[in-house]
């Protein structure tokens, strides 16, 4: 059974020339799997991720025919209900730890706070849990990092701290929006391995939002490709390189490859028909 099911999701922003439709009729079903959402900037992938947790600005209009998470009707949930879901049942990792962590609070206290908000525990237990979590994201000296401030950490470490904070509540679904595009390839690889392990061990669902087709193809189980606010293609991640849609094919061809030299990279020719309602 799917963990999250969304039908006909629309996100609109007010614009000078009438509303701008950022997401146009997206259907999504996520099980306990790694689902990738790929697309270029403006494709609506981040809006889709944020709308699940109602994290879009107030002026955005979100409508959906059905949005059910583990039996809970998200479309009609109150703000109070949403607060209980956010962070404890569904967590979200953002792109850049530099802007997502509180700069004047130690890393350990921030993670412990996330735990205390959702669990009925005392602070000693929160501290123990935090140190365990820091070890789980392979931070070598959890005691030291517990007392460190965000500016004392490297980008890779900051992102691991974010992951620790998001997973300390043991959520069922994790939404990761470009979790490693600010990181070096080798650090990126290590952060992904940690997410991968945690997803498998805890049987979590993961929505992995990224612009990097190769990464998604190699990391996820299933991929949806978004263009102009719609899902234009869904396939198994291992079959992404045999994608059918001309947009997906165009994106794949536009990337330079180390093993095969070309004189000129094929440029994506955008067909207005791709924007027509599916």
């Amino acid at each position: 059974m799917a963990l999250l099911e969304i039908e006909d999701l629309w996100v609109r922003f007010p614009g000078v020339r009438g509303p701008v439709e950022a997401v146009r009729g997206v259907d999504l079903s996520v099980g306990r799997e790694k689902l990738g959402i790929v697309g270029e900037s403006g494709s609506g992938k981040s809006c889709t991720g944020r709308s699940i947790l109602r994290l879009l600005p107030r002026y955005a209009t979100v409508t959906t025919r059905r949005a059910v998470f583990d039996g809970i009707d998200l479309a009609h949930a109150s703000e109070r209900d949403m607060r209980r879901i956010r962070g404890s049942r569904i967590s979200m990792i953002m792109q850049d730890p530099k802007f997502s962590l509180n700069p004047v609070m130690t890393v350990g206290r921030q993670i412990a706070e996330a735990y205390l908000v959702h669990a009925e525990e005392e602070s000693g237990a929160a501290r123990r849990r935090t140190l365990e979590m820091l070890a789980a994201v392979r931070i070598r000296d959890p005691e030291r990092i517990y007392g460190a401030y965000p500016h004392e950490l490297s980008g890779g470490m900051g992102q691991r701290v974010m992951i620790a904070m998001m997973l300390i509540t043991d959520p069922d679904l994790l939404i990761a929006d470009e979790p490693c595009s600010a990181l070096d390839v080798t650090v990126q690889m290590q952060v992904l391995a940690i997410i991968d392990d945690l997803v498998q061990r805890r049987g979590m669902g993961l929505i992995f939002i990224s612009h990097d087709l190769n990464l998604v193809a190699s990391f996820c189980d299933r991929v949806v490709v978004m263009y102009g606010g719609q899902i234009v293609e869904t396939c198994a991640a291992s079959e992404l390189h045999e994608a059918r849609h001309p947009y997906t094919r165009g994106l794949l061809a536009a990337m330079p490859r180390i093993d095969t030299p070309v004189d000129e990279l094929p440029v994506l020719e955008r067909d207005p028909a791709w924007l027509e309602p599916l």
Partner: protein
Amino acid sequence: MNRRTPPNEPSTENLSLRAVEAADLSVVYGQGDKAVHAVKGVTFTVSDGEAFGIVGESGSGKSSVLRVVAGLNHAWSGRLLIRGREAEKRRPRRSYRIVQMVFQDPYGSLHPRQTVERILMEGMAIQDMDDRHRRIQRVLYDVGLGGEFLYRYPHQLSGGQRQRVAIARALILEPRLLLLDEPTSALDVSVQAEILNLLRDLRARRRLSLILVSHNLAVVAHLCDRLIVMNEGRIVEELEIGELRRGAARHPYTQQLLRASVGYDRATAASLVTYD
């Protein structure tokens, strides 16, 4: 005005002329106990007309090297020759006509309250160049933007169009050496393809020498003839692009970068080591 011989080389072109020769280049930020050795004695040569890549991860010193060559960084030691001339710490204004740079983020590198025309005019005014309007028309055409872009502001342009303006701003001074610091990493892949095609085309048409700094091995392979791999302020390996394509990297750090750039793989992730 500088009355000395213009640094543009005379018409009798020296064939063995090197675009850049750097010997034992070091960069240190800060002093005493807090000194950070960002670049630790780097030696390389870029031939005239060559496209040269510098690859490495954050903190490897690759951008510091580029900024020294650009004349934006004065905290260096060692020897640096640009087109056969000794580069000084404080360079004469005319020398900037030979070396120009394109930055990573086209959203940050263009003045938000200047029109494209004004942005392109600035360098020519500083260099006291003539025939400015004709040059602007030509350079806009060269980077694939029409005259209708003249009076637009950066916020009215897409990311790719902005990077084209940034390239035009560099080219309008007719440099012989173009420095590129992650020129496509802020762009979508479809736009990246357009900019890479443009750079390849401009390089051939204008006989430019290029230095490209990037963490993306595929981008470097596409644009360059040769590359160095940097780690912790040092060059760990120098490679021809053919060797990179065949996977013939010798240093374990380069091999690791190559494996990591292919995509996610559990075994690769587990095998990663920190080299220093």
